[in-house]
């Protein structure tokens, strides 16, 4: 297997890598770049622990190969803090105890950040009653849109509270 040269832009920083083309984006982040904040829970796209944001959209980084992402803007959990301050979503997860073991948490938070952007852009979900109108971000909408991220500790109700808190623009 011949390696490929690929430049990945992660959290605004460019990394030139010489990669086995079989390396997933998830493993490139964790094993090649040492950014272990993104987690491997199933390696088959079923748990959401590996969720990262690529060009503004959340994806399962275990289901895509790293060499496919030259030129993409990749945001991971390590890239959400600004000037050493927690992203509002990170702070809300702590405040609402939207985590226990913490293993699904980076994926949950990346997913939640992208969810708010999707909602803002007017994307409907399965829980949207009328897809022709702008969806209202009910708890049911949040829960539906977060159901690709499994939390076996089952902090789900607190995760919904944390996301609602941020969506409403501040502390509850």
């Amino acid at each position, binding site marked *: 297997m011949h390696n490929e040269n690929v430049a990945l832009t992660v959290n605004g920083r460019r990394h030139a890598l010489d990669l086995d083309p079989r*390396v997933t984006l998830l493993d490139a982040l964790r094993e090649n770049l040492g950014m*272990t904040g993104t987690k491997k*829970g*199933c390696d*088959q796209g079923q748990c959401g622990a590996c969720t990262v944001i690529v060009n503004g959209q959340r994806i399962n980084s275990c289901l895509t190969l790293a060499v496919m992402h030259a030129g993409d803007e990749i945001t991971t959990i390590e890239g959400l803090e600004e000037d050493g301050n927690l992203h509002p979503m990170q702070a809300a997860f702590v405040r609402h*105890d939207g985590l*226990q*073991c913490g293993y699904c948490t980076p994926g949950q938070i990346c997913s939640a950040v992208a969810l708010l952007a999707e909602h803002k852009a007017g994307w409907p979900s399965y829980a949207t009653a009328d897809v022709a109108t702008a969806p209202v971000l009910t708890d049911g909408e949040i*829960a539906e849109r977060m159901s690709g991220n499994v939390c076996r500790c*089952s902090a789900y109700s607190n995760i919904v509270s944390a996301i609602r808190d941020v969506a409403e623009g501040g502390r509850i």
Partner: protein
Amino acid sequence: MAEGKLADPIGLPLDRVDGQLKVTGRATYAFEYATQGGAAYGVIVPSAIAKGRVVAVDVQEAQHAPGVLLVLTKDNAPPQTPWGPVDLPDRFARAEPALDSDEVRYFGFPVAFVVAETFEEANAAAALVSVRCDSLPGQYDLHSAGPTAEDPGHISDGAPANSSVGDFEAAFATAPVKIEALYTTPYQNQAPMEPHATMAVWEGQMLTVHTSAQLTTSPQEGLARTFNIPKENVRVVTRYIGGGFGSKLPFYVDATLAAIGARIVGRPVKLAMTRPQLFHMTTHRTASEQRLRLGADRDGRLTAYGQDALVQCARFDNYTEPVCGAARMLYAAPNRLTRHRLAKLDLPRSDSMRAPGDAIGLLALECAMDELADALGFDPVDLRLRNDTEIDPERDRPFASRHLAEALRLGAARFGWDKRIAKPASVRDGRWLIGLGVASAVRADVLRSATARARLERDGRLTVELAMTDIGTGTYTILTQVAAEAMELPVDRVTVRLGDTRFPPTAGSGGSFGAATSSSAVLAACRKLNAGLALGLTEAEGSVTPADLDDTYAHAGFGAHFAEAAVHRDTGEVRVRRMLGVFAAGRILNAKTARSQMIGGMTWGIGSALIEENHVDPRYGSFVNQDLASYHVAVNADVGSLDVMFLDEADPHGSPLGSKGIGELGICGAGAAVINAIHNATGARIRDMPATPDKLLATLETLDA
């Protein structure tokens, strides 16, 4: 409170102290430790048969594949101690050898191990290993093994397998009102988010394993036993653990193989089981068949109370799920009979999963109580109140504290139980049928042995160290609060360090004993340090033992679950709209993390009632569901509104801090409340868990459109 003095931190809803590390991705799990020179990657090759022998393993192609450093099989694995001993008092410290013989003991049994420079190379080479096996016929079906199942003597918590008070058979035969029902619960998987993983490093004769484990001293002993080396030569490090739920009480071949691999290739080796491998290579919760026989007088007082349980363990093991443990202490009845029977099958090992015994025992018992209430024409809350007891009915000791009745009463008022219409299928909301259900919760409380060290640093900060773990339960946080209060320090002046066998030994996290045990040890260490400060003492150790719990009393946490279920009239889909759990669990050490434990348990209750189920393929002896797409755990959209209430319960006879276990109480009875709500919604009595839509359709067809 004096001016300037801080509020006593124990009990406050403080944010978890490791929260910031976890939300930024900086908490380091087993697979993620950076090592000098980089680690090599290991991949396990599992068997494709359930029982038999490995005849030949062809490793030629794999050995010559790019990047491969080692291909290990039965032909070249180093000598190890055989698995066991099965009767070791600490079953989690048994030897866990790998590739030490040609025997295949269950489907997915490790038969080869590949170490390579990269994960991709190891994976590719593992696919090139060719394994030839001779398969033997195995026994995989629990139900058909029932007639020949054995009396195990004891169940896994050490209690006798059978208990009898009065004359159950005579009382049941003559009871004016009675029900008899067979309940079944399926195989379940703990499915922690972080797969079992280990990174092993040798420095001379010293082995360090960074592993994902609930316990520290047990795997240390077990690895020493496996390799026949002194315990002092093994260090177990497990600082952050991505969930355990019982599945990380034992250690597994990931630790053994990483250690062997690292020894042979002369550098660190790390490996994580794949998600599908977890379903066979680690433990699961046994399926069960439970025969419930309840008899009562016309006033609703239980006169005969019987539970017979059939459970599975692996052919070579002895684990017996303590299914009837809850029944033995939940209600008064003069004539009682509980029995466990164990079927040894050629399936993977069963062992603990959140609230072993009680989670599935109550799923059956608390539904049977609902059936009895129906037969009596009683309100289900009232029936439970009538059978409450202040005395442990089988061991004749008073409960140190027991507030089941208060939990039921308060819960009923808060939930709006008085609006429940007893006649099933009476309430509709469009195409949805609405029902309410209740169930009691109980979970025995135990104290184990632990030692903690407290050290006052030169800068005035306090460091607390113990070989305890935080599996997400909030241990780092509650121990910080306990130490801060004991030393009268602000919580931000306290650092708690866990998960390292270099610290004083503890019993780890499991069986709801973790918080009471470790916090009692921390309290003892801090008190000793505090008392010696004037004499110049800067470091002290303190301990707790099981004897610190007064055994003239029975110890347990109690609670009541209430659930509102909506069942779709046409599809049988069940939605849990809201749940309330009211718990009497002693002193709450952190109101925020304690609530999280409870909503977690209640969500597991929803999962066990509605979706969690693994199937055995009787042809191959394998579990059919080997991933999270087919083994369903509750996701966010499965959970409605969850409400948790703690009663203010002081327990002067309990653990030194008066706290009780809370990691498991939340699941105990939770599923039964959902199942009972489904009955109230539809009239369907589900006895074969989980209540999937197909099981409801026959009843729904009998209802008016």
